[in-house]
């Protein structure tokens, strides 16, 4: 289990370093950086490479935003298996709903509770 923590730290940290390089060296805005990483995650899953990374690094691969692209592809593929090509469209948010719905719900609660501190 401690190996899991170690690799989660290392892999998660490395994905963040890639993001930092995109921002600092390629001068991308944070929004561009995150969008690029999400697309990268989706493509990696297309090649079947992201799941093994999750098996290996656990939260180190599921917590970075790249996993968002991965789960979108996963949902789409799962549904596609069941319902054919139309499943690609309908299954997309099946797996990712947690991140988005949590962000929406907590975003609203946050707006009720807090004011920007500046």
């Amino acid at each position, binding site marked *: 289990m401690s190996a899991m923590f170690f690799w989660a730290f290392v892999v998660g940290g490395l994905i963040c370093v890639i993001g930092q390089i995109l*921002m*600092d060296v390629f*001068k991308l*805005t*944070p929004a561009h950086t995150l969008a690029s990483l999400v697309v990268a995650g989706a493509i990696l899953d297309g090649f079947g490479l992201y799941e093994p990374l999750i098996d290996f690094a656990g939260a180190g691969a599921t917590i970075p935003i790249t996993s968002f692209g991965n789960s979108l592809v996963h949902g789409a593929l799962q549904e596609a298996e069941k319902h054919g090509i139309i499943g690609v469209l309908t299954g997309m948010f099946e797996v990712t709903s947690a991140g988005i719905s949590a962000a929406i719900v907590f975003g609203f609660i946050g707006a009720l509770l807090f*004011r*920007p*501190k*500046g």
Partner: protein
Amino acid sequence: MLKGHRTWVFENKPAILSTATVGGPFEANGRIADDFDLLHEDLWLGEQSYEKAHKVLLEEAMFKAMEKAGIAKEKVQLIIAGDLINQMTPTNFAARTIGAPYLGVFGACSTSMEGLALSAFIVNHGGADYILTGAASHNAAVEKQFRYPTEYGGQKPPTAQWTVTGAGVALISTYGDGPRVTSATIGRVVDMGLSDPFNMGGAMAPAAVDTIEAHLRDMQIDASYYDLIVTGDLGKIGREISLDLLRQHGMNIEEERYQDCGLIIYREGQPVLSGASGAGCSAVVAYGHLLNRMKRGELKRILVVATGALLSPLSFQQNETIPCIAHAVAIEHGGDGP
């Protein structure tokens, strides 16, 4: 009266009767906290929104300036002011409160000197007896509009600058005593093709250089005529670049006599990266700190060159470069001009 190509000389020598500056909590921890008339502990100023707080900053500075000069608001014949928020609503609302005739001006961070130049011109030619001029900015309101939500975690590069929360207002008149506004040079838009909104200093430096050179050329004076040439908000990088540019152009200028409002206002160690910026930056430093130093006799003649980056978030997203401008106004003690 026009002198040279684009410099006005004010032969009636309008006086700055009084000034007032208001700042926020971050400024209260800064280097020139003592030069503020009013400092707020709360970034919200007790208001419902940052935009409202922004309006209050300017209102308070205006009332304070009138109070210090002993001029009732009915006697003010014109307000020339501006800020950075869309359609200048904070200034519009502040002008509504005062109720005097009002001209809103936008020159981004150069608004303070744009307003002062216009006010001096109008007063000089008898267009008004008393004019209130000023500029304000509010860190959170400006960040919200130009960058990201204030609580958003985006790392700012070392070239970025910190928007001042503050308002500086001056009351201009030909009657009465005070430092005199002797001349002003209106800048032209200079665009050197830079497009990084997190590096305004680098973009604005050529505009400042252009205006300083034009002013000295038009007035046929040397840089050493002024005890201090102070730029608006070039920050560390912009100041260095403009100093190098001036020297490259053969201008003899001493390091200590060439300063930047964006570097004066905050203390070393405050997390402002390259320095301060914002419409309020040159306004609070010039109308507060610098005029106080003139009153104490430390400075006799200063040239304030307020710099502005005339971009919007939209123009940046559409890949436009950053057009920049700088307006210079000479303020002299007692007003014995050249």
